[in-house]
């Protein structure tokens, strides 16, 4: 039932709806939706704000955020680990080795990507947007919303980039999630585990299942993108 040690057994589990594999898949989807969702919620407004305002230190802030796009996942994981550790400042919350911890660590990785890409998406259409929006004399928050709406096709790509990062990331979730069976084991950490066990074909099969999941997400997004185009 829980045997996922060969290529065939992983696909048999995938087709038969085996509990263990689907628990891992469910947790992966849950983590990805939460970490990307929070990153978009915080990242879109931040990007829109930075694109439309000028303030001292903006250039520096932009460079820092762009640098954070290359933040190594292990470092992000380590920071969250130290924060949530029993001896850390937030240790009393007992969040380490749980789904929230994984989402926090992934947020650190995805948020800078969303801000940077949103910023450049809006800037690339800034002139056209400015002409239409600012003549309307809307309140500031509505201006931002309109700006984001104008760039929605680009922002969909930003969202997909976030999903991709979240789905494929292993260093941070391994560190703060702990790869606990049935609790924090996601697709990437399961692949890592099978690789360490020497079950290379099972690891590849799990990788294919993960790609299938990514394909599904992209297909849904593209469907919206195309519908919008018509």
């Amino acid at each position: 039932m829980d045997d996922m040690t060969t290529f065939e057994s992983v696909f048999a589990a995938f087709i038969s709806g085996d509990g263990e594999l689907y628990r891992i898949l469910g947790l992966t989807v849950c983590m990805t939706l939460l970490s990307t969702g929070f990153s978009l919620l915080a990242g879109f407004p931040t990007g829109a704000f930075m694109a439309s305002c000028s303030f001292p230190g903006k250039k520096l802030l932009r460079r820092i955020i762009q640098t954070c796009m290359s933040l190594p996942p292990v470092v992000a994981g380590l920071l969250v680990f130290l924060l949530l550790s029993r001896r850390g400042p937030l240790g009393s919350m007992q969040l380490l080795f749980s789904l929230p911890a994984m989402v926090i660590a992934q947020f650190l990785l995805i948020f800078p990507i969303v801000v940077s890409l949103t910023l450049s998406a809006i800037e690339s259409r800034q002139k056209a947007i400015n002409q239409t929006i600012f003549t309307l004399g809307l309140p500031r928050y509505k201006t931002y919303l309109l700006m984001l709406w104008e760039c929605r096709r680009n922002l969909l790509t930003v969202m997909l980039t976030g999903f991709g990062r979240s789905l494929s990331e292993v260093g941070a979730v391994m560190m703060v999630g702990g790869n606990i069976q049935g609790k924090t084991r996601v697709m990437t950490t399961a692949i890592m585990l099978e690789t360490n066990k020497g079950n290379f074909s099972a690891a590849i099969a799990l990788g294919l299942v993960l790609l299938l999941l990514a394909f599904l997400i992209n297909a849904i997004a593209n469907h919206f993108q195309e519908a919008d185009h018509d």
Partner: protein
Amino acid sequence: MKKSLLYHARKSAALTVIFLLAVLPACQQAAKVTTSSAAPAAVSTSAAATTSAVVETKTVPAKPENPIVRLSTTTSVNDSGLLPELEKAFENSTGYDLEIIANGTGAAIKLGESGDADVLLVHAKASEEAFVTAGFGVERIPFMHNYFVIAGAPEDKAKVTACTDAVSAFKAIAAAKADFVSRGDDSGTNKAELAIWKNAGITPSGDWYISAGKGMGPCLTMAGEMQAYILTDKATYLSTKAQTGLAICLGESEDMKNTYSLIAVNPDKNPGVNVKGAQAWIDFMLSDQARAMISDYGIKEYGEPLFFYDGSPS
């Protein structure tokens, strides 16, 4: 504010120089690694070319025909710090270049099966015997042992300290439903743990049994965070003790003996392996020099030896 073209040119030049200064040494390091790992492939085509390359880069006593020996081992052996010391002594006395690849036991043995390693240093008796029986290994040579220990929070909720062997300790932990972190990764340590559960007649399951699927070090960290019990090798326990704050609840007992073996990969199955190099490593490990190094290891740092030598009597 418009700055002159010269200013921008200078600024970019300075940034480029800084970047190159940072990157170049790293590249050189990477190139070195690439040459050494590419060497085995070159050997099969032209042994003479490799020998001359060795003369250029090394000034060691002997000049073996095929200088690269690939040792596949488990993380716990490598992490203890003993292996790097043995590696240095081996390389100095024989002129071989030992490449250590550390993985979980499953993957470590797999590298022997696929011929991606010349010799194994592992600690999972059943898997080792299966490996030799299937013809992938020449012979299993047990050469040293140590003991697993049960570590846990100093409070010792399940009263493991009162137990005399691992089986009764595991029974106490299960009865108290005290948190227990399992490697869950098919490693030698994991297999030893599962064997103890089996002897205790318990199938561990429930919220208290945490199957982590990680290496020894990260699992100890996790046990420290959760104040959980854990079966661990003593060397890794001692090296992480300061961070985890865990105490040894049950020390050396006969049912926690952990035997390490050497196995040369069988050239009949994998013709490309470095037979002479593997034998040189095994000979070295059975020598008096290695015996002394293994028996003394840990005494200076921890006040007690971490490994007990079982190789050929001197």
